């Protein structure tokens, strides 16, 4: 279906371009070009670039082409006078041959380029730390190798994502304020960071039995506008494996994750936004409900991390609890959000520069077209006073040549 559509649109685009090329009348050419631009806008839509499609229609097809038409009409330049003796009759075959050769070479590159196989862009691993380890009074300190990446991190809090170089690291948990040189860590384990990883290092478990779960997050954009994504971690020391399910309003049970082992993180699961009731069962046992969490609120376009564990109550008793951490997902590809975000981060400088380019265009339009009246005035003034040597060069008779 999509493919058929593509071919139709592509055919129209090529036809419009070719017609633009051969139309005698400039106005027709401009109209064909508009058709072509509209086709490209449509292709932009197919390529998940709604914002561009919009700009294409408004700026190009709307503003620029209207300007073209306007100038053609203004100058009455629909067609140029035919030449008595065609000057570059050899140009057509040469241009065609050149174009075909160019196309041949370029398409060779494109097809040989084998776009599907290209290696993705390399990104440094992103790491954050989340504290789901209840019990430490002032929170915890976390060290990655010798560098402290979290200080006094309280329960239910997390750091932001930071980029690290890929490689082998050792993660160590300390009680807040501990001296890593002198004190023993609460827990430590080696981890490996590889490129393109987006990892949450979740401290979980109990003070007696702390652990760090490495959860791989998928921050990539989600197609569903109202969607969200979550990763679950089983931090219940007494449960080797659990199932996680969502209870609908009707009391129906929809299993989201099956058989999540202790100390493991699940795959990412997509979910509709809204308020959910989440229940946890021992693996394979749909009758024993271990815990039920009502009204777990989740925003759209976020990536959530759920840690199922025990929380230490003020009375020193323990209670099973769900700890959620959420992070904004990468915005939907091509959407206004996405474009806007990039525009204000990586592309702010080009944005400013484009403003300068537009300023130049403004000055240019003024400088190039504005002077007619002024020139005549000066000419009159000059003629009235002393003829200057430059008058001759500016005489209107010559200008009309």
């Amino acid at each position, binding site marked *: 279906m999509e493919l058929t559509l593509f071919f139709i649109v592509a055919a129209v685009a090529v036809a419009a371009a070719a017609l633009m090329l051969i139309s005698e009348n400039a106005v027709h050419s401009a109209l064909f070009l508009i058709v072509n631009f509209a086709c490209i806008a449509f292709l932009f839509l197919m390529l998940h670039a709604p914002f561009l499609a919009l700009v294409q229609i408004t700026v190009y097809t709307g503003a620029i082409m209207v300007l073209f038409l306007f100038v053609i009409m203004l100058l009455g330049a629909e067609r140029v006078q035919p030449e008595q003796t065609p000057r570059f009759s050899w140009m057509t075959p040469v241009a065609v041959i050149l174009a075909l050769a160019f196309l041949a070479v370029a398409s060779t*590159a494109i097809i040989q380029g084998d776009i599907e196989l290209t290696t993705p862009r390399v990104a440094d691993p992103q790491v954050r730390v989340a504290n789901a380890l209840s019990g430490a009074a002032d929170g915890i300190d976390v060290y990655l190798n010798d560098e402290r990446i979290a200080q006094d991190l309280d329960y239910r809090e997390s750091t932001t994502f930071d980029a690290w170089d890929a490689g082998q690291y050792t993660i160590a948990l300390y009680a807040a304020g501990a001296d890593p040189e002198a004190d023993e860590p609460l827990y430590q384990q080696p981890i490996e960071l590889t490129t393109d990883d987006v990892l949450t290092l979740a401290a979980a478990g109990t003070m007696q039995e702390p652990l760090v779960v490495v959860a791989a997050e998928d921050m990539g954009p989600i197609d569903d506008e109202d969607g969200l994504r979550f990763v679950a971690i089983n931090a219940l020391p007494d449960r080797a494996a659990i199932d996680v399910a969502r209870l609908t309003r009707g009391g129906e049970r929809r299993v989201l994750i099956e058989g999540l082992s202790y100390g493991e993180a699940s795959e990412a699961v997509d979910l509709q936004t809204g308020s959910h009731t989440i229940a946890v069962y021992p693996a394979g046992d749909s009758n024993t409900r271990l815990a039920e969490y009502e009204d777990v609120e989740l925003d759209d376009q976020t990536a959530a991390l759920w840690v199922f564990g025990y929380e230490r109550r003020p009375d020193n008793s323990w209670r099973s609890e769900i700890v959620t951490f959420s992070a904004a997902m990468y915005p939907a590809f091509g959407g206004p959000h996405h474009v806007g975000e990039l525009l204000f981060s990586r592309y702010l400088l080009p944005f400013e520069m484009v403003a300068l380019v537009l300023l130049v265009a403004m000055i240019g339009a003024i400088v190039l077209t504005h002077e007619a009246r002024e020139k005549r005035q000066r000419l009159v003034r000059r003629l009235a006073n002393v003829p200057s040597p430059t008058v001759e060069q500016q005489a209107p008779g010559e200008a009309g040549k």
Partner: protein
Amino acid sequence: MENFFDLVPLIVLIPLIGMLVNLFAGRQIGERGVAIVAVGASSLAFLIAVILWIAQVQTGYEPGVVDMPLLADWISVPSAGLRIPWEFRVDTLSVTMMLVVTGVGSLIHLYAVGYMHGDARFPRFFVYLNLFLVFMLILVTGNNFLMMFVGWEGVGLCSFLLIGFWFDKPGGEGWKNSDAARKAFIVNRVGDFGLILGMLMTFWTFGTLDYYKPGEAPLAAHHEAEAEAPVFAPQFPQEEHAEPEGPLGVFNQAQLWLDEGGHEVDFGLVTLSFETTLTIITLLFLLGATGKSAQIPLFVWLPDAMAGPTPVSALIHAATMVTAGVYMMVRSNVFYEASTTASFVVTLIGASTAIVAGFIAVGQWDIKRVLAYSTVSQLGFMVAAVGVGAYAAAMFHLVTHAFFKALLFLGSGSVIHGMEHGHHHLTDHDVEDHKHVPPHEHAPQVETERFDPQDMRNMGGLRHKMPGTYWTYIFGTLALAGIIPFAGFWSKDEILVDALRLGLDENRLDGYIAFALLLTAAAFTAFYMWRQVSMVFYGQPRTPAAEHAEESGPVMLVPLIVLAGLSLIGGFMNIPSGFPLLGRIFGEHQFTSWLEHSVVNAHAAGFLWLLATVAVLLAAGAIIAARVIYNDRALRQLTDDPLEANERTAGAFALANAKLYWDEFYFSTIVYPYQRAARWLADRLDWAFWHDFVHDRVIGSSFQWATEMLSNPIDRGIIDRAFDGLARLVHNLAARVRTIQTGYVRTYALGVAFGALLILVIALLPVLRDLLGL
């Protein structure tokens, strides 16, 4: 005494200041002021050279390196390991050159004050002259090849400006002058190309361009170094020898690598053995030297360069600049010593230049052209001396030649001046203006026929009119001819001895060739010089102008006398061992042992009585022969040369007069057989196709083209034609290529598109090759 070495920057700065003063205030301070500044600057430079000489002697000939203030880090990029400092080198070789350049230079400056008197562009002349001194001194004092190159280009520029100095001479003369200047510059650029490439290769090989680093003593070949170990300064321990980028200068590094053997140089694309590298470098340097020192095949510019004012011919085109090539090769003696191939080529080129130019000189009518070819010939002697390894002899001849050739040029200038004066006296004697006007200012608009004051046929009998000039000229001629005890005898003899020794002792062919050619060339020298003396000074005046010629003023005569004295005694500085009496008075091999401290391969030649006798007799015989042929009767009416009148020698004379008919030579060796072959083919294979197409079109037109190329008027040598042809080729090519510049936007766009396709195809060749299965 080393402190005096610090004066060396001044030797460059003083002429520079003189030049700047004359440039900016020349018109204000008047002719006298300009003269004082210019002559003063060059004399002060000479004084410094003398001080340096004394300092050298006092310090035991220790070489010194002096930084130029401000320019210590001239070109340096530490991160790239690139450092070329602006350092002056004071050693016996450079001091010798300084003495010659400033000494002869000062005399010629003084002479020029008289010669250029009244010229409208008097200040500018001295600006150029001082600028020339600046560059020449940079050339000889620099401690690295790049400084030498700076000087090299600079003197070329000054030569260009000075040859064309009289561009506004009326009647087509000016155009000829400017043509000559351009030719000199362009021919020299061909030589420079060799020098630049040689320099880049040297830099690549050694990582530096310094001759020697400061504090580094020149290192002789290994076997000698072992015998006299302390020559090598202790601060460079043995271990460092193998370091490719050690702290050594170019020559010592080369010497060490040569002693070690087996060293290789990686040029990225190819790896060459060190010896091969040196051969290539030396041959490239030789190309540079053939340009600047006017050797075959690039000598054609020097005779034309005589279009410049005579002091310029004396200073630049005889005494100093043209010897730069010889200096450069002597400086690089370590390289040349190492490469037998290069030495062989050098010998061959030098010796053949000597004989060819000597032969051509016999057939010239122009007084300065004879001297120009003589200069080319003598430079050939020096180059050949380098080729046979006689570096001291080459330098010795360079020095003595500077004396007597400068003398001869200045003498000829005096003669021309006198002739102009006589001519002026005749044509304008009723004009009241008795102000002395320099030669070219004689506006000959009134004349219908141009009078050539340089044509020897117009002279004669000047012996009585200009006695001072005559006697000094005789001194110069005898010195050049190699008559004992004049300077030229000693230096020429040493070269001949060295050439013969190379042949006898090492059984080397080039030694014999050089010896034979140079001995013949020496005979030619004596002959054409005495022919000139006879034509100019003997007999009776052949024109009214010669009759009214007058002696030049004292400003011009004093330099002549000083130079005549030097031509007489200059040779005594290097009396060969075994020569009686003189050796004991002046010491033996003084000059060689002085030079040995900087030119490691300099060695003294002995004295061969037999050879000296033969050489002197040959010269004397040539002189007598010349006098016999150009006797007073023959000189009375000199429309034809006696050699031309005599049937047996007419051919040879015509040959010499036409500069050897190089065109005909090429014609007979290439075109004629080609023509024969073509005809034979046409006769035997007379097919219609063959006849119509191949013969008429291909052979016919290319033959026509070839004959057109080669059979143009023969007053210019084949090499002239080659350069002209090259220039025309480039011009035609340019004219053709420019037609793509149509002025139409669309064709320009086509160019862009075509270029895009082109580079896309180049870029994607690997893919396309894969696709096509190649």
